[in-house]
């Protein structure tokens, strides 16, 4: 076990990057019927490397879910067992989430938030007859411990997993296009994470860690809040791209977690493109069972607020996460209220509906509102309020003119790399937003030369401009903490 703990399985470690191709080759060399066991062993070793004792918790949850699933499938009317099981899983989750506010140091097992939600969704789907209960505990264990998703999602639904898994056991063959597309998506993920996210994190972390906000002025505070929006997006989207790409190389199509969320026109659409698997989980298992939008506007708004509050709690048992979530709830409600009269309001302001300028205005306003909300996500409640107040209290133009922005640790060249990287990512996000085509599909359509050039470009940018190395812990993804 100690040698497993010494292995660095984090996605940005060289060890993992070297190990992965070896794993993929071995995976395909094995006969189909043995691949599932190979996958299971790798899943368990992968998870154990982050803390062997937490493997016990994961396996215990799988055992609970397995037996409860069997019992529910025999008697779907018995809600008692289901309720007890869900309460138990939620209590375990809240125990680790709440440990940050109690005077004890308990480290939450990696991925507990994600695989617990997967387990709850499995039980509810069995209860609702959406899926058959799984009688093979190994399938359930593979599902819950699936190494691409176990640490930070995407939240994989069982009915999506099992069909692919059983098909893979029967007939998965190495497919050049699928494997190459998966690798391209992984490279794109590393580009987003190492070139943009890690770089833009430098001024963000410096400002929020020292919190000398009074010295910088409103403009710089605004720029840093935008920078944090970019950081959290590229960090999480980069991670998602990497794991989706990995899964694709071994025959699993994971659900997309992001769909150009910053190019949308309103906050409602933002949640259709941000952390999609969590949003849809909350929609399917919280919002809709509460009644959704079917019980009148007022009830709908209550349901929206409850769903967002639970989302905030899921992220952490702290006031600032709740504030962030409530803010988004309020945005949604206000958006609903304003929607019928939105275009009339825009017309009064001289903005024509469905024009490029109108779309640009809506997108910009939405992005700014979301960036303000991210401030609450990043730091404590009191600090967030101070930050927002200081952002509006003085422009601080002279600070900008005197180059105080460079004091945050990122040089003009660094900012240029962030901007150009964002433009590069924006081009592919636009394709995703307009045509629902991922980068690998877009490149495929452009031909072999364009695809090769883009891959060479991204690889060189990662190697030359990526933030990694002795002094940095690029292996830490933001959403790993949830």
């Amino acid at each position, binding site marked *: 076990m100690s040698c497993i703990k*010494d292995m*660095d399985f984090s996605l940005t*470690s*060289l*060890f993992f990057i*070297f190990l992965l191709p070896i794993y993929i080759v071995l995976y395909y060399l094995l006969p189909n019927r043995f691949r599932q066991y190979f996958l299971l062993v790798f899943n368990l070793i992968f998870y154990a490397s982050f803390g062997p004792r937490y493997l016990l918790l994961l396996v215990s949850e799988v055992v609970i879910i397995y037996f409860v699933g069997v019992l529910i499938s025999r008697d779907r009317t018995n809600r008692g067992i289901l309720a007890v099981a869900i309460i138990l899983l939620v209590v375990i989750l809240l125990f680790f989430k709440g440990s940050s506010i109690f005077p004890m140091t308990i480290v939450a097992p990696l991925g507990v938030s994600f695989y617990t939600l997967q387990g709850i969704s499995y039980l509810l789907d069995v209860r609702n007859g959406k899926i058959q209960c799984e009688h093979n505990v190994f399938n359930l264990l593979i599902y819950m411990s699936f190494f691409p998703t176990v640490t930070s999602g995407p939240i994989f639904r069982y009915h999506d997993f099992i069909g692919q898994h059983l098909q893979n056991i029967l007939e998965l063959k190495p497919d*050049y296009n699928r494997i*190459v597309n998966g690798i391209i998506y992984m490279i794109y993920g590393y580009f987003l994470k190492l070139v943009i996210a890690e*770089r833009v994190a*430098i001024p963000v972390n410096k400002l929020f860690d020292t919190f000398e906000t009074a010295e910088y002025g409103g403009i710089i505070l605004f720029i840093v809040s935008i920078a944090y929006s970019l950081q959290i997006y590229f960090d999480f989207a980069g991670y998602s791209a990497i794991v989706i790409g990995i899964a694709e190389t071994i025959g699993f199509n994971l659900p997309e977690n992001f769909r150009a969320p910053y190019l949308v026109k309103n906050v409602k659409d933002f949640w259709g493109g941000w952390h999609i698997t969590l949003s849809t989980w909350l929609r399917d298992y919280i919002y809709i069972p509460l009644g959704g939008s079917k019980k009148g506007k007022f009830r709908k708004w209550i349901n929206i607020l409850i769903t967002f509050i639970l989302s905030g709690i899921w992220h952490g048992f702290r006031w600032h996460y709740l504030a962030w979530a409530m803010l988004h709830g309020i945005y949604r409600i206000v958006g609903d209220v304003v929607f019928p009269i939105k275009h009339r309001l825009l017309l009064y302001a001289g903005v024509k509906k469905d024009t490029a300028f109108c779309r640009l205005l809506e997108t910009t306003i939405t992005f700014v509102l979301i960036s303000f909300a991210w401030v609450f996500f990043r730091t404590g409640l009191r600090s967030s309020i101070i930050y927002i107040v200081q952002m509006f209290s003085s422009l601080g133009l002279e600070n900008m003119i005197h180059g105080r922005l460079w004091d945050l640790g*990122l*040089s003009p*060249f*660094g900012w240029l790399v962030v901007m150009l990287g964002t433009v590069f990512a924006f081009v592919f996000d636009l394709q995703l937003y307009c045509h629902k085509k991922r980068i690998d599909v877009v490149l495929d359509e452009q031909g*072999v030369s364009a695809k*090769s050039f883009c*891959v*060479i470009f991204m*690889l*060189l940018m990662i*190697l*030359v*401009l*990526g*933030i*990694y*190395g*002795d*002094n*940095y812990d690029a292996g830490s993804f933001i959403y790993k903490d949830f």
Partner: protein
Amino acid sequence: MRKNIWRAIRVFFILLLVSILFYLYLPPQWNAITNMKKEIGEEKADIVFIGSSHVFNGINPILLWDEQGFFSYVAACGGQAPWQSYAYIKAVNNLEHPQIIVLDVYCFGIEEPRLYDYNHTLENMLTYPFGIEKYKTLRESKIDNIADVMVVFPIIHDNYEQIKGLSINKVLDSNWVLGYSYRIGECNETLTPFDAIYTDELAPIDTKCEIYLNKCITYCKENNIELVLINSPWPRITEDDQKKYNYIAQIAANSDILFLDGNKEMKSLNIDYMQDSYDGSHLNYYGACKWTKYLGNEICKYFSVRNRRGEAKYESIMQRSREKLKKQILVTVD
């Protein structure tokens, strides 16, 4: 089938192009072994000195050439742990096939955890030639990021701000002459005289260190290399330390290997640390000359090493080295 071959070629070409472009971009990094190859070429050195900072501060190959005509090189790095010395002996043998390897045993007698210092491991092993020996030595050095050190670039890639996002010569500078680092300056503190801690008693060294000492001895015997063990003069030695070097002396005697303990020869060396050390520990230029002269005489006494004076290829290397040392002296004076 043809399609698959083209695909394989395309993938290989992309990876090759990226690797070539990236490695062309990487700045060269200093390392005792790679510098030795660059500075003197292969199959040249008759004597190679291996060890820690005691060696690269304390042994002057130019003086050895002037006094005895021996062509030598100092392949030493700071805090070189015994398993790293073993790796160095192998690398030196592969490159130079020297007649004599002189191994300083200071680090064989010190305690953990100093032997596992991460920065020293980087100094010694970062650009050690890639291969299984590098991997094994890194494992013995107990570092966490073996994969990073194996491929080098993640370690030197820490300068995110510049377009040359890679540190040049992160670990050491390469302004050394035949591996020797010229130092002047004097010690300003009073040091304990060696007489005060002189002892003939023995105390065993760390088991792992002893294993590697025996490996070094065995390797040199199997490859027909004369091994000389030395303990460069070191003023901060304690009585307990000296017992361990006495133990090493006994191992050397049992293996019929010459062991030269600089601390016991201080009187004959006429070393006065107040003048001959630049920091109260390491020898300065004057101290290095005394110690080197002594070593040269002892090597002459026990071994028959070729006098290379007059041989064109060696003379040209020594001429270059002398010029480089002159520049070092001028820079230091300035």
